[in-house]
């Protein structure tokens, strides 16, 4: 964040007007342990620092520590829910939110945290995740079953066209729901979700992906046989890294891969027990437990054309003609 950005000036003004010295210091200490504004400004402990100068210093220090967005999130939460049981009217919060939007950050209403404006940029970290820090993440993993057979039995151009389509489809469906594709390995990949309703988003993405692959198989698939995919979604904590090799070593990633590769049948999409409780009934209705013993509590989804019905249901009467 630029020091002279309008949003920085707005935040400084807001701290001064709405929080005052004592609360501003408590705020700073909640981010930087033992923060001492006198020492930062070179004042002896016995000399009081003017409030306006103090909040200015606090904001600049938090920017330098890379904590400015966290500071604004704190202001948003305090404006909406109060702080330590007391309600505070945060002056100019709307201007601050507008300013953040100008800087390329949108507020996620669910988690009350900022993420990068997808109209301006799309990065794997949503512009927020920090390397080495642990976050709650929902992962969606997909994999093409029998990849070796597909590659051997088809021409390189057909395989490339089909796999390109799958990769683009996966990316489009994930980004539509604020997900990010973190890993792509040629015959499968992994997307992450953190904003909005990440568990619901991952579930809907997995379902849409299976539906689209079925349609692709029914009309446009250039390969000799229908493409079979396995997909799995799982949620937990993960230490963020920009290096895919490091991500693959994370326990959450290993568990997701295990659910997909060991317990998910081809043409199926599984959600783990950490996701299922967060999925709305109307969507969860079309998931079912696996038919065979599975040591993990998972629910599976698959879709296929419905066989012909014996008799069509009765229709209502025609009221009028065209």
């Amino acid at each position, binding site marked *: 964040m630029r020091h002279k950005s309008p949003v920085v000036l707005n935040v400084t003004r807001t701290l001064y007007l709405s929080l005052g010295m004592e609360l501003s210091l408590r705020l700073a200490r909640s981010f930087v342990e033992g923060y001492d504004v006198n020492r930062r400004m070179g004042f002896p402990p016995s000399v009081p620092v003017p409030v306006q100068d103090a909040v200015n210093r606090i904001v600049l220090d938090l920017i330098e520590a890379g904590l400015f967005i966290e500071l604004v999130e704190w202001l948003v939460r305090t404006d909406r829910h109060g702080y330590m049981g007391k309600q505070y009217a945060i002056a100019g919060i709307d201007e601050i939110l507008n300013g953040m*939007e100008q800087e390329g950050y949108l507020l996620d209403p669910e988690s009350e945290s900022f993420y990068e404006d*997808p*109209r301006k940029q799309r990065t794997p970290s949503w512009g927020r995740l920090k390397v080495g820090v642990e976050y709650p993440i929902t992962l969606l993993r997909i994999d093409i079953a029998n990849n070796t057979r597909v590659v051997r039995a088809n021409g390189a151009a057909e395989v490339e066209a089909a796999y390109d389509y799958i990769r683009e489809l996966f990316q489009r469906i994930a980004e539509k729901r604020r997900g990010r594709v973190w890993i792509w390995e040629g015959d499968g990949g992994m997307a992450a979700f953190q904003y909005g309703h990440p568990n619901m988003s991952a579930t*809907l993405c997995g*379902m*849409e992906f299976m*539906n*689209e692959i*079925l*349609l692709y*198989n*029914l*009309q446009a698939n250039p390969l000799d046989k229908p493409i079979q995919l396995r997909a799995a979604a799982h949620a937990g904590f993960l230490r963020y890294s920009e290096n895919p090799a490091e991500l693959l070593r994370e326990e959450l990633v290993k568990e997701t891969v295990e659910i997909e590769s060991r317990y*998910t*049948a*081809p*043409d*199926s999409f599984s959600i783990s027990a950490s996701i299922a409780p967060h999925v*709305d*009934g*109307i*969507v969860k*209705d*079309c*998931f*079912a*437990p*696996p*038919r*065979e013993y599975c040591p993990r509590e998972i*629910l*599976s*989804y*698959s*879709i*296929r*054309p*419905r*066989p*012909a*019905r014996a008799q*069509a*249901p009765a*229709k*209502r009467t*025609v009221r009028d*003609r*065209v």
Partner: protein
Amino acid sequence: MRAVLVTRSKALELLFDGVELVRRSPAELDPSALPWGQDELVYLDLGSVPKRQRSEWLERLAAARGLRWAVIDRGRALDDPAALFRLGAVDYLGAEAREGVVDRARLDDIRAYAERLDNHGPKAARHRAHHGGFPGWDALAEDKSYELCALYAGVWDADGLRTRLGELRFSRFKAAAAGIVNALVQEHGGLLWISDDQSFLALFPPELASQLVVSAMRILANMRLISYEQLRLEQEVGCLYFCLRRCELPWQKPGQTGTVVSDALNYMYHLGRKFTPPCSIDLVDELADSLDPRLKTLFIDAGSFENRPIRRFHGFESAGAPPDQA
């Protein structure tokens, strides 16, 4: 080029400088009904349109044939302004737009851009690729018969849904369903002919039957997601169904049909209302034979309706892992 500013706020006229400008209220404008000239550009002020009607307005603008349109969004109501250009908009004025931003030079640029889109844009390419010999709706002569594809899309049990959801939620459901059908019509360069609370009848170039079937199947496959995400249903899954027929139709411009009712369209209406079951697709006559063999196998003989053979796709079913593979 003349600018038509659709707004309730006179202040927005300040955005225009030295161009011929007409201001109109959103209430007096129906984008699909007016004969729009190639030399008019409609600027819709989103702030003058009620929040709930915005998407409907954008869909109407996008569907209006021959209309060049743009959006003024001073209140940053749109999450994704780029999507407007995919819908067919030719200009966008956001919150930062300064006074006099729309001048003669800008309109000239827009005209050049719109002409490029008409000739070389993705829409034109798609039209050429998909429509083959179809001359375009504007080129059809009145009272002459043409072979066209008629698609009936119905909402299953609309009356029951209205009772269960209540009027307010049902009206939102209706608008969302209309949005889905409009997107389908627009994607394939069709023409929405008639619609009511529970059904839509649209016409398409005859070569598009196969693509239409795939699009209808996509809607049926994603019906649960659509119900949750677009129709905002929390308790039950909405259900659409489709009938498709290639037929010879005497052409009249929309809104000028008078009492002329085609037997073919009447047949489609009755087929949809009386015969087609929920979440399925009915194809009339030999239409199924023109499909890709992989698709054709999914359409099974469903008897006949008013002496015409019907082939039916029974929709999708979802469950746990397939029994043969679990």
